[in-house]
């Protein structure tokens, strides 16, 4: 999961990395729970470039906080809607440095990156400003390497990077992180420091043994809805366009992504990404029923396209489960277009035809039929 900044900072605080005082607001607030001002109001959304998009604003009075909060909540960036802001005490008179730890998949290690300047994207810094090293994924090794790397910086910056590096090494290993980036790291003259911004990517595969991360999924309609769905239902479902017109019942992450890319290139508007994992259905309709119910929530969905390439899965059994699930979700009334290929195709054809669903062998023919079902289009 790519954590919201607020969640990232709370998690980091528990692992010895402090941030400026702040609170999370989901609606404008007159100021009762605000930390001491002045403030910075930051949209909580997991996309980069919030500053440039006008989603981070300073505020001097509590009224300004309320106005800015009202203005930012509900805004959209890259298809995501801002549902909350973090209101944080501004840090004044501090220098800005950079520190991150991330996976190095080629070296099977953790890369530490430090720089004396922070606050901008690190891609904008000259390469010689970045000090980096990759070491084994082990807490003591990582902490020692971070201290050593920090020793190449002077004075307060060096002291702050060493301390933050030691704490981050422990946090990275304990939380099984994929990336922790603090940019900027605010550094005061005496070497004391706090995390100005935090980017924290955790490992969904480690969730069962990371209870403090798993707790973030408690609100199944919260910011990590996709991870929560996967945790509960065992499949990957992402609404890629809330205004999308075509629901997709697909299996396989790569093939499903590719289908969405190709449909969009052809001017079609898919509603969702789905990797239902046909191999994991185990003869039950439960997962299919849930998926059809989610699709029914798409206000503009006019047709459902099924695309399954079955290497191993028996399409006959899949078709039977599908017809049964459709019967159990009668409120989802859209036309169904199916394209199946592989194992058990002939049985699948019989089952689907009986249920009034046309089956295509060819994806282009299926897409042509999908087009025919869209209102107001040729």
């Amino acid at each position: 999961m790519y954590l919201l900044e607020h969640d990232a900072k709370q998690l980091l605080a528990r692992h010895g990395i402090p941030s400026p005082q702040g609170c999370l607001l989901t609606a404008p607030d007159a100021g009762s729970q605000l930390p001491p001002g002045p403030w910075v109001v930051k949209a909580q959304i997991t996309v980069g470039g919030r500053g440039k998009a006008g989603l981070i604003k300073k505020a001097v009075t509590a009224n300004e906080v309320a106005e800015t909060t009202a203005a930012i909540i509900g805004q959209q960036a890259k298809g995501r809607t801002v549902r909350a802001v973090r209101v944080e005490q501004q840090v004044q008179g501090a220098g800005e440095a950079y520190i991150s730890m991330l996976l190095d998949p080629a070296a099977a290690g953790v890369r530490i990156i430090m720089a004396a300047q922070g606050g901008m994207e690190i891609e904008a810094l000259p390469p010689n400003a970045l000090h980096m090293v990759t070491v084994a994924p082990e807490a003591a090794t990582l902490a020692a390497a971070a201290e050593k790397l920090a020793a190449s910086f002077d004075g307060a910056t060096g002291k702050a990077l060493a301390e933050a590096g030691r704490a981050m090494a422990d946090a990275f290993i304990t939380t099984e992180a994929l990336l922790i980036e603090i940019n900027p790291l605010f550094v005061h003259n005496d070497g004391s420091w706090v995390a100005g911004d935090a980017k924290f990517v955790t490992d969904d595969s480690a969730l069962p043994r990371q209870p403090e991360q798993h707790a973030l999924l408690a609100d199944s309609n919260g910011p990590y809805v996709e991870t929560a769905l996967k945790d509960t239902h065992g499949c990957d479902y992402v609404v890629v366009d809330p205004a999308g017109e075509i629901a997709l019942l697909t299996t396989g992450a790569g093939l499903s992504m590719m289908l969405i890319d190709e449909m969009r290139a052809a001017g079609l508007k898919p509603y969702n990404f789905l990797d239902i994992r046909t191999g994991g259905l185990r003869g039950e309709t439960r997962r299919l029923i849930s998926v059809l119910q989610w699709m029914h929530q798409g206000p503009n969905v006019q047709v459902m396209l099924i695309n399954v390439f079955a290497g191993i899965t028996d399409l006959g059994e899949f078709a039977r489960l599908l017809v049964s699930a459709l019967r159990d979700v009668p409120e989802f009334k859209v036309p169904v277009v199916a394209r199946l290929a592989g194992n058990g195709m002939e049985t699948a054809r019989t089952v689907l035809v009986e249920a009034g669903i046309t089956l295509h062998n060819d994806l282009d023919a299926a897409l042509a039929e999908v087009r025919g079902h869209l209102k107001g289009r040729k």
Partner: protein
Amino acid sequence: MISPRIDRSTRVILQGISGRAGRLHSRLMREYGTNIVAGVSPPKDINEINGIPLFPDCASAVKATGATVSVALVGAYDLLEAMREAVAAGIKMIVTPTEGMPVHDALKAKRLTQQAGVLWIGGSTPGMAVAEVAKLGFLPDVSLKSGALGLMSKSGTLSYEAGFRLAQGGIGTSVWIGVGGDPVKGVRYSDLVPFYAQDKQTRGVLIIGEIGGRDEEDFADALKTHAFAKPVFALIAGRTAPEGVSMGHAGALTYGNHGGYASKRAALENAGVRVFSSLNEMAEKIADVF
């Protein structure tokens, strides 16, 4: 790195053979021609599955059969330990189709296999195959036709579909390797460049990539470093995927400038790779030039 090229004499064990996937795929692999000589499974009342003799651990299986390759079909949280056992038993190549191995476990597994000189294919891999000879993992027979195209893929399903369409158009594969969709994986595209360069059956290479990580960029660099002379093609999924959300594969996650489509396409094209925008275009254009 040892060669991933297997044949019908390569001796293979299956760790986790008594599970649902182990029972099914030991049969399918054997029917395809894979020489599965042993299964590893906790001791029970049975001593064989699908005619394959069972052993309580890797060491005894390897000792009795001389196996050099393992396919591990165990749970995600048991995988690291299963790999340790296989490496300790002297296995030289491990294929791990299991999805959901924790990434920090994968870091340890990668160091372990690197230090022991073991070739690791996975995690979350659909497997690998030498078409019409033998396969390790789940690759469907309908997509496997023997030919001259080396194929590497992060995704299972997208590669099945691609292989199927290519086969329909008369294009077959030489050595097909599913590198898998995890962010930290064993063998990566770039590691396999020297192998495909010297492999005589291979006259060109197709990589099926997706957003997330730097595997495609590193592959492009490796093509230049090794002055790879055979034609290279690529298909990359996830061009329009939203930022900040994993798209089915743990590795398919973009954030900020990290892992995006544009950087991959530019790096590949800069290395002389022909990047296709659709499955149809891929199947048609490869058939034209190949």
